[in-house]
């Protein structure tokens, strides 16, 4: 393994300091915690929006802290949910008196730790609500699973909830729009290569020179299916079909699409995928209202991509257009 790191056990700590050093006017790190918050948190009279999860998904989540998006983000060890006490101190630091919305990706670790943190915060008289994002259509939501995973669609939840909170809406309203995104978004991913965690130092799964994994998550979990390598067009088609099958959209529906890179994929390739994706939207009679292409929710150095489709209405479009100023996403008026 070759990585630009020092000791594997220091990587999250040093990354967080390196982020604050890059955005000293926007970010602040809580003392002795692996938690970043807005420089001016808590913002009085505004609902706080927080998220968190294992590290290795940068710019998720710390990179989405800022005006119009998150107030705080907790960074666990690589691919390991943050602990409940860290989450609790984040919630406290981001409560401006109007309560805090926790945007949780649907993993048992995240859910359990956020649950505990919410209980702890409520004991401090902080109003807490949670929305659990589960946009990954690769995983069937059945008795046989713990439900679908939360992946790239999470960023849209940050954006929409953040915009609503910036408007001055109350916790219920903010929670409602966050849930609206969750109800309307689907994602499916694939990997050309496994990621390598700093700690293990070897690929989490082995893929042959001619194999790819479909239906991967963002933690180097093997996918749901292994197939022969295919062209960008074929891959775009497969992922898109799965997502659209799940969403069952009406003709003429306006959508936001994301081609998300997994960390090691050149932007060039993501644009090639977007090229086919937009043709497919056309072929399916869907209207792309906005198309995002880039690394939003990564899996360390994995090569691969995911495709997200989110059905929009006027309210969501307005909230997605609202200004955002964060290291990882800027929306200007």
């Amino acid at each position: 393994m070759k990585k630009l790191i020092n000791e594997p056990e220091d990587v999250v700590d040093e990354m967080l300091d390196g982020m604050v050093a890059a955005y000293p006017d926007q970010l602040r790190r809580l003392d002795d915690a692996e938690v970043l918050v807005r420089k001016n948190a808590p913002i009085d009279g505004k609902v706080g929006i927080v998220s968190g999860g294992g590290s290795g998904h940068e710019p998720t989540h710390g990179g989405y802290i800022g005006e119009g998006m998150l107030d705080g983000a907790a960074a666990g060890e690589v691919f390991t949910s943050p602990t409940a006490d860290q989450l609790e101190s984040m919630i406290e630091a981001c409560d401006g008196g109007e309560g805090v919305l926790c945007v949780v990706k649907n993993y048992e670790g995240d859910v359990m730790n956020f649950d505990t943190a919410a209980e702890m915060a409520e004991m401090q008289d902080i109003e807490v609500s949670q929305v659990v994002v589960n946009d990954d259509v690769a995983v069937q939501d059945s008795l046989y699973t713990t439900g679908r995973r939360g992946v790239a669609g999470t960023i849209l939840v940050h954006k929409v909830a953040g915009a609503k909170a910036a408007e001055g809406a109350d916790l219920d309203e903010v929670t409602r729009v966050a849930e609206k995104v969750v109800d309307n978004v689907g994602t499916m991913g694939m990997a050309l290569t496994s990621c390598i965690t700093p700690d293990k130092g070897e690929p989490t799964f082995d893929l042959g020179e001619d194999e790819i994994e479909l239906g991967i998550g963002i933690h180097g979990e093997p996918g749901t299916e292994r197939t022969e390598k295919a062209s960008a067009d074929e891959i775009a088609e497969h992922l898109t079909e799965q997502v659209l099958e799940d969403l069952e959209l009406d003709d003429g529906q306006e959508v936001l699409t994301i081609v998300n890179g997994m960390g090691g994929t050149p932007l060039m390739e993501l644009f090639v995928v977007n090229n086919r994706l937009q043709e497919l939207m056309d072929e399916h009679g869907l209207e792309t209202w906005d198309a995002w292409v880039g690394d939003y929710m990564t899996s360390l150095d994995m090569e691969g991509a995911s495709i997200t489709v989110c059905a929009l209405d006027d309210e969501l479009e307005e909230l997605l257009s609202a200004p955002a100023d964060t290291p990882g996403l800027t929306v200007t008026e």
Partner: protein
Amino acid sequence: MSDTERQREAVVQALENVTARLEEEKTHLTELDSAIGDADHGTNMTRGFSGANEKVKDMDEAEPAELVKTIGVTLVSEVGGASGPLYGGSIMSASQEFADEGITAETSVAFAEAYLEKVQDRGGAEVGAKTMVDALTPAVHTYKKSIETDDLAPLEALAKAVDAAERGVEFTTPIRAKKGRASYLGWRSVGHQDPGATSTLFIVEELLATAQT
């Protein structure tokens, strides 16, 4: 040495043994987690237990229940992931069973039952979901029956619990996961041994090893 002192020493010793064992098995556990999870179970467990070891070293005066609780609290705040709340939170709340009478044959059964219950409350996994519950359930059931029905000594009961846990671990391999990250794999999870069940077995084995000395 008073009873309380003896119990305290036993807890500290057990914790040391468990920590050393997990350290030894770190790569092994992470390997298992690579196949059907996210390659961090070994790291998670050793980070948590080393932390607990550090904490407990300075608690010369604490009651056994307090010590056990501290182990749980430390795991909660050091491990994260799924195993943090499951191991840590459950140890933390089950430690209450030792509060009044310290560690006895009876209270150890109560602890084991409370621990299993908590893991299932938090995680929602039944037996057969391919999780730590599959190792834990036979171990706890066997321990309880050995003590309460068969009148075995704790040491013998624990030995039987280890056997039971071992069979539980083996049972996880041929079945499909319903909980935890392995469940994302669907049928591809069949044929792999569950990391959390495996670490549960190691812990029970070290409890036995500690009791034998």
